[in-house]
């Protein structure tokens, strides 16, 4: 059996109400509610790392990364992901890009590989931080986020029965190599194109598997228009109760991560025997038919969507929302580091290795030659450090240079031993206390010398300390 063996969503903690965006432009919101939005230290890769970590796999044979907004145009994002997840050099990696369909295209590629004999799991992770022009409707109804699924043969939660695609070079959203923001051609014409491509892809996959629309428990459609999406689903022949909720009022359209996000949400609620129809759209469409197995009953989602929706903190203003999105476009004054330094640092900083002493047992960071506890010189071995922990002590520092002061700095004791000194992100300073549980999250620390600099920060665990909104 081949199919989905794990799934998770990662939504950035920051949100902004559409009222606030509209008001900044003297306009009315095109849609109610709020959207998810990245903090200044996040990008598509950091969101993807958070998603892959939340997946909690003990084994991973490959990473397929999908995004239309990868931070590097030349340098494989999946390689950075594999490093951050401390995977071996033997994993198969690939980047998928340039289309809102990239998420389902990557999923198809992973399925193809498993069909070809790969044991799996292969992680397919999609993340997007799309930039729409200020004042455009897209600025309001887009969101940011990531979702990941594992594809393999063991403990399959949802067997993929069939998949099909159609190609259509329709112009809806485009961005040239020289553009920072998308150009939207969205109109009733593009909605028509969506209906056409999606309709054909669905028809093909249903025909291949001999299943009728009424036999689908849940059809998972990426939203095409903030207002028309629900109606388009009906026009495709589905009843309202079959259509997967799209979370437009709480999240928004999160680019090529949308299909996997909605699939994960559907799987959270799914029961054995449910039949899901997953659709990806962009320059054509992908459709996949999945049958939920009994494994779903024992599967634990590490970061349920509902909890992440409650976990949000709101940008106090539109200006800060925009500043967070644009900060690193204008700031490149970080350290200029050699690639030789980067190579040396990679193991300890991005892979986050520490040492453990065979004599006294002390776990310590960063890697060193002599034990900090017992001074033994021969007994240290390299270990992976835990990525969750507890605040030992902290400060809220207004002197730290930051686009959004103050900066919370914390000394964190990590699970399994070892102590780290980390900036805390996605946090309201009043939340912080000694003993607070935190999770490590890879973030952009700065930019300079042609590189974005990534290192770990920590964030509050949702559910424990998050302000209930």
């Amino acid at each position, binding site marked *: 059996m081949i199919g989905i063996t794990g799934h998770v969503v990662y939504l950035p903690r920051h949100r902004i109400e559409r009222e606030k965006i509209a008001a900044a432009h003297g306009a009315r919101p095109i849609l109610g509610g709020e959207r998810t939005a990245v903090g200044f230290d996040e990008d598509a890769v950091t969101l993807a790392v958070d998603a892959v970590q939340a997946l909690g796999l003990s084994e991973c044979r490959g990473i397929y990364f999908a995004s239309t907004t990868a931070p590097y145009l030349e340098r494989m994002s999946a390689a950075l992901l594999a490093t951050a997840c401390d995977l071996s050099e033997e994993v198969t990696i690939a980047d998928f890009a340039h289309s809102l369909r990239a998420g389902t295209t990557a999923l198809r590629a992973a399925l193809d590989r498993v069909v070809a004999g790969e044991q799996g799991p292969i992680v397919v992770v999609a993340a997007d931080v799309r930039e729409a022009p200020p004042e455009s409707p897209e600025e309001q109804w887009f969101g940011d986020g990531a979702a990941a699924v594992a594809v393999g043969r063991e403990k399959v939660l949802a067997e993929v029965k069939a998949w099909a695609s159609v190609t259509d070079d329709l112009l809806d959203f485009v961005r040239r190599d020289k553009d920072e923001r998308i150009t939207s051609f969205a109109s009733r014409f593009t909605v028509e194109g969506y209906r056409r491509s999606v309709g054909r892809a669905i028809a093909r996959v249903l025909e291949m598997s001999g299943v009728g629309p009424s036999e689908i428990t849940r059809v998972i459609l990426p939203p095409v228009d903030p207002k028309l999406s629900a109606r388009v689903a009906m026009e495709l022949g589905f009843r309202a109760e079959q259509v997967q909720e799209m979370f437009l009022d709480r999240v928004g359209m999160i680019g090529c991560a949308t299909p996997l996000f909605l699939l994960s949400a559907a799987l959270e609620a799914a029961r054995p025997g449910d039949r899901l129809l997953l659709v990806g759209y962009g320059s054509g469409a992908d459709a996949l038919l999945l049958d939920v197995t009994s494994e779903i009953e024992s599967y634990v989602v590490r970061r349920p969507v509902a909890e992440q929706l409650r976990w949000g903190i709101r940008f106090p203003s539109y200006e800060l929302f925009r500043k967070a999105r644009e900060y690193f476009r204008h700031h490149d004054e970080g350290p200029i580091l050699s690639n030789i330094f980067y190579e040396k640092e990679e193991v300890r900083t991005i892979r986050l290795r520490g040492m453990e002493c065979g004599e006294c047992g002390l776990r*310590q960071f960063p890697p060193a030659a002599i034990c900090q506890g017992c001074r033994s010189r021969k007994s240290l071995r390299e270990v992976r450090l835990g990525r969750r922990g507890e605040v030992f002590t902290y400060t809220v520092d207004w002197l*730290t240079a930051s686009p959004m002061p103050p900066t919370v700095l914390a000394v964190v004791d990590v699970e399994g031993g070892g102590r780290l*000194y980390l900036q805390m992100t996605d946090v309201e300073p009043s939340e912080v206390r000694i003993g607070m549980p935190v999770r490590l999250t890879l973030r952009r620390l700065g930019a300079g010398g042609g590189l974005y600099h990534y290192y770990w920060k920590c964030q509050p665990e949702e559910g424990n300390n998050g302000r209930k909104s």
Partner: protein
Amino acid sequence: MGESLKDKVAIIGIGCTKFGELHDRSLQELIVEAAYAAYEDAGIEPERVEAAWLGTFSPGFGGGKASVTLADALRLYGKPITRVENYCATGTDAFRNACLAVAAGVYDVVLVVGAEKLRDRPVRGLQREGTHPYLEAGSTPPGLFALAAVRYFHRFGGDRRTLAKVAVKNHRHGALNPKAHFQMEVTEEQVVNAPLIAYPFGLYDCCPTTDGAAAVVICRASLARQFRTDPVYVKGIGLAVETGWPFFDPTFEYIGFPATVAAAAEAYRMAGIRHPAREISVAEVHDCFTWTEISNYEDLGFCRKGEGRYFIEEGRSALTGDLPVNPSGGLKSFGHPIGASGVRMLTEIVLQLRGQAGARQVKNAELGLVHNLGGPGAVACVVVLGR
């Protein structure tokens, strides 16, 4: 265990510039003023100096980080000069190295200068140099000490009001000192209500960034009375270096600084001090932040760990207390030009021991202590001086 430094070296001359925002003066001018004041106080001509040590953290432009900053300022050429940099213990460590050379009998008369021009730098606060681009990203001097203050409060209690008492005391002392950066008193309310810098530290919990220079002339103890009738003798010196990354040490308790404890133990051993709180008459300790002074009381053995807050609350460290701490106003009020501070603190204790400290004179000062603490509490130097 080697020999003690006790009574082998004497301070025969001291000099100190006004501390503050000396916008119209250069580092070189400050060095010259401090050194020539020390020569005059010692009653020597510059030619008498056989070797010199310069303590600076950031010598600015010209001369880079070498010893030529001192040589060119004083036109002191053809002699051995060493520049010392050891975080905030720079000044006292420069002094310590000079003492070792004199005690070894290599030189008779040497000069120690600490000088710093922090206000000439383009950044707010004290920029940390040479830090790791990832592992220490975002750390600031107040932020590093705040980590300990937060943990200390968690363990022993206390709050911003506790800290404010240190600021009030040191400002009161500084108001008596014409050379201090700030000569103004502050109220507890002012301190508590000041803007936060790094929780729990507000503006008045932090020492300022200051310009200044100080110098001492030292000689072999056996020669001291050739120069003056009231030399001050070095009774003991200790320097201790702990990890520069305490935040990675899983065993670090963050309630005080083992570097100070170790440096004090060494200095006390040399000086033969067993009960510091009873034997020491006056102390200049490293109050870079208000909480640091509270921790210093404990780490220097003036009281037990966790009881430092009572030491300040009960007024024991005030000028009128039984162990006055920072009669000069401390780093808090006198200012903290990194490399200059340790040497400046030595000049204050010398004044106290000579009975020349004016309005801030501690009665019957017999034994005085100087303490510096550098980096994130990583480097500590303790000097004990006596008559």
